[in-house]
């Protein structure tokens, strides 16, 4: 039986801080399986504890499955034990924790590695059912294609410490990252950037919006969803700016 140890992200946070404010590991979601949850009235306590954690944008809980899905603010490096402790403080028992992280796949010596965007941290990718890094052919094929194309991808899996001391991430799901790049006119200052970023990230399925005043540009990303460029342009227009799809 595979011995799994949940990874503490303290090393990632420390490494990120040492490298500077730009190098922040990009984890979009944390999902925690919660045991002991049986009725709606008890859900509130878990929600309240998780929302108190810095960097948490949203918490959704499914009573039927006992899953607490936490959406993080952009660039947040989560500490897994913080989420587990929050569930305990609510009076319940945390079980498996999974993260969804954005980055790129790299092939190295017949192993597949995953580098988080915004960080130097790498994870050795595992199949979720195997005790070692031998990946099933289908999964390996998908990862090799991603490594060749160097496309950004969101990997959902359980972090753990590998026997050799490496950080491991079992692959539960691979989600393509869709993006739309728009030219934006009318922004005058950083407040416009902040307002537009918030507005775009509130739109359905939008994972992240990177808005640049200097480049007069907005790149909007979605995980495992399709973006409608026309709707995004309308959103920007309603905010008082103008936008068009980049050639």
């Amino acid at each position, binding site marked *: 039986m595979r011995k799994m140890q949940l990874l503490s992200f303290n090393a990632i946070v420390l490494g990120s801080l040492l490298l500077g404010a730009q190098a922040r590991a990009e984890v979009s979601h944390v999902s925690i*399986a919660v*045991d*002991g*949850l*049986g*009725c*709606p*009235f*008890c*859900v*509130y*306590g*878990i*929600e*309240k*504890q998780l929302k108190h954690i810095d960097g948490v944008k949203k918490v*959704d*809980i*499914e*009573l*039927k*499955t*006992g899953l607490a899905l936490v959406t993080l603010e952009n660039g947040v490096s989560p500490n897994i034990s913080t989420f587990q402790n929050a569930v*305990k*403080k*609510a*009076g*319940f*028992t945390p*079980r498996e924790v999974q993260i969804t992280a954005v980055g790129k796949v790299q092939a190295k010596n017949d192993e597949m590695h995953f580098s988080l965007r915004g960080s130097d941290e790498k994870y050795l990718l595992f199949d979720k059912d195997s005790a070692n890094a031998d990946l099933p052919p289908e999964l390996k094929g998908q990862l090799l294609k991603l490594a060749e194309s160097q496309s950004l991808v969101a990997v959902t899996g359980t972090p753990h410490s590998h026997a050799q001391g490496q950080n491991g991430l079992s692959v539960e799901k691979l989600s393509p990252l869709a993006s739309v790049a728009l030219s934006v006119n009318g922004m005058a200052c950083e407040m416009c950037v902040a307002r537009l970023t918030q507005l775009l990230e509130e739109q359905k399925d939008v994972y992240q919006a990177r808005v640049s005043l200097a480049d007069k540009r907005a790149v909007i990303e979605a995980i495992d969803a399709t973006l409608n460029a026309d709707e995004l342009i309308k959103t920007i227009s309603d905010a008082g700016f103008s936008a068009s799809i980049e050639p």
Partner: protein
Amino acid sequence: MKTPFKELFPSAVILFFSVIAANAGSITTNTALPVNEGEFIFRGQMKYISSTDDPSPADRELTVWSAPSVLVYGLTEKFTLFGIAPFLDKSLNVNTPLGRRTRGDSGLGDIRVFGRYTLGQWDKPGETLRVGSFAGLELPTGADDVVDSLGRFPQHLQLGSGSWDPFIGAVLTWQTLQWEFDSSVAYKLNTEANGFEIGDVANLDLSYQYRLWPSELGDAVPGYVYGVFESNLIWQDKHEVLGARDPNSGGTTWYLTPGIQYVTKRYIIEGAVQLPVIQDLNGSALKNDYIVTAGFRFNF
């Protein structure tokens, strides 16, 4: 001093002093379900207690409106604090040598404060089994010296006992996504005040709640409708008046209690009726007809 008529303390009246749950689960019993650290729950109830089955010539009719307000606080995930403040309106119609009279009063009753600790917790996906213990004190905050034209009210008609009364108990809860079972035992040691000592009280409460709707769970957190069925067994010792035991007090009462609840993430609304199926009371103690309870709770 012997009164010309007997106004005996109906066993049922003690129910609104019962320890009541606030954090989901049962309506008339306690529960071992957790309260999140730092979370508050407020519970309001309205109870109507009717006791008119009087075997004595006094033909007593006692009605009590009780509105207990409960504030709960999760000090830690295992230790929860409770405070119960009851507002009471008591009215007794009774035959006296001066004719039929109505006596009564309204106001704050005796406040209860207690703590509950989770002793054991066994969690599985969608299921939990927990045991806990609780202990506390009933404070003499209710008026215990009310008088009218007929003199001082008998002790049991006063809003408060005048005494400091400790209590202790244990709870067990087994909850799944479909149903919940709660069991609670408690013992209250009533002490003496104003020459009167109310008999000690022991409670054994059971509760079963079954999710009637939705029949299948979907995504997110739906509201539940629970059908509730509870059992309340109460034993009370005889009162003591100036050191002498009152033969017309105390006894055992068993209630069966059907109810219904609507439970959401932030609030609960509920109602129940307690029907006495057995009232084995001593002497000519006044028997209870029924108790109707309606209430709500919300967390914050």
